[in-house]
Structures are given as C-alpha cells and as structure tokens.
C-alpha cells in the first residue's frame, strides 16, 4: 500500500485500468452517443493524469495548468461536437 503514496504509481495503475476499459468497449462493439461520451470521458481523465502527475503540472503556475488542461478540454469538445453532428 505504501507504493500508492507515490502519485506516479497511482496514475500508472489508473491509466492501465482506463486503457483496458476503452479496449473492452471496442471489443464489445460499443457505438453511439453513450459510448462516445464514455470513451471521451475516459480519455479526458487519462490525459489529465498525464498532465498533472507525469508532467508534474499539479504544482505548476496556474497559467500552464490552464494551457495544458485547456488543450484537453478544447480537443475533447471539438471531437464531441463533430460526433454530435455525425449522429444527427
């Protein structure tokens, strides 16, 4: 349990679990609004972990956190918008 005090170990384990969930959704042929939102949400959480715990921006000046996390929000929103258009 001591190992989980290291935020990098914690992030690594969560990232592996999240990756297997995305892979599983692909295996069962998940498609449509709900699965798209779920996969984007998973990618968002994963991206945030990489930014905060791997790039170590958790303790960085606010501007840099906003720039990187903002990128993640921008990319996810654009993808969501495009998929929403495709479902219409």
């Amino acid at each position, binding site marked *: 349990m001591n190992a989980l005090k290291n935020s990098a170990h914690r992030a690594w384990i969560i990232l592996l679990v999240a990756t297997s969930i995305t892979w599983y959704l*692909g295996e069962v042929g998940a498609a449509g609004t709900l699965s798209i939102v779920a*996969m984007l949400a998973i990618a968002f959480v994963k991206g945030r972990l990489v930014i905060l715990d791997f*790039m170590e921006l958790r303790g960085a000046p606010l501007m840099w956190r906003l720039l990187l996390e903002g990128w993640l929000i921008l990319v996810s929103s654009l993808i969501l918008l495009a998929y929403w258009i495709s479902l219409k």
Partner: protein
Amino acid sequence: MTTVTDTPAPGNTPDKRLPGDLAIWFFILAEMLAFAVFFASYAFARANNVELFNLSQQTLNRDAGALNTVLLITGSWFVVLAVQAAHRNDQRAVPRNIALGFLCGAGFLVVKVFEYAAKFGAGISMSTNTFYMFYISLTFFHFMHVILGMVILTILWFQARKGVYSSHDAHGLESGAAYWHMVDLLWIILFPLVYVMR
C-alpha cells in the same frame, strides 16, 4: 526610487514551479496545437463520411493500438521514476529508468511497424480512402514524435550516466521528460479517436 524586495513574482514562488525549461513548454504547446488541428480534422471529416469511417475502422488492429497505449503509459511512468530518482540523488536509478522508458518506446515502434506492414501488405495506402489517409498520416506523424522522444531519451541517458542530474539541477531531464509525456498524451487521444470511437 522603488525598493527592490525579495518577494518572488507571482507564479514563481518555490511551491509553484514549472518543471524543466520554459522553452520546451512553448515547443510542447505548439506541437499539441498541431495535433489538435489534426484530431479535429479527422473528427469533422468523419462527420461527412460516417459509414466509410466506421467500416474502415473495423479493419484496424485494436489490440495493437491498446498494447501501444500500455507501452507509452509505462514508458512515461519509467521516465517519471527517473526524474524522481534524480530529485532524491539516486544516481544509479536515473539512467536505468530512462533506459526502461526507451525500451517501451522501442516496443511501440515494433508493434507499429507490424501494424503498418499488415496494412500495406493488404494493399492499403494513403489514397485508398479518406479514413486510411487520416489513419496513416496521423499515426505516422505521431510515430515520428515517438522517434524524436527516443532520441531525447538517448541524450538524457548519456548525461544521466555522467551523473549530471541531481536534486540540485534536473532541468534538462525534466524538459526531456515533459516532451516524452506529451508523446504519451497525444496517443491517449489518438487511440480512442481513430481505433475505437464509432
């Protein structure tokens, strides 16, 4: 005359610190914006060709894509461990973890080469259709970034073996590490977008 005080500028206080050099972060941001345009182009092109994209996507090797995600995540994790080792002056663990991160990158390239070989062997190319044009150009653009990341890791490894990185100064290591994590971050979006979402 204004008096000079010792108060650090906001955002530069020791507890609010940007790892590595400022320049690398601007470079990373520029790279990420380029990929953002690429990702959005893929998603909007798909909106006009949903059936074609869904059909072509079925031919991709999701297992290979997921395995490569695991390799990049693990490679990133090793490099975080290298940075942590430098901060606690564990000079032996720094190059070891950098090397392990490099090996994960090499594994990624091997998997990708097999994937490309299977696709090209099946007669698929950039001109097959819009989906494959995006699939090949997006993943190849990323592939080149993995290679650049591995070149950076190689330089870091040589420096680390000389004991350059320590709690006193790990700026170079942190800068290279940030770039390596960016390569991971980009794949984390690319994999679900191109291989799974439908």
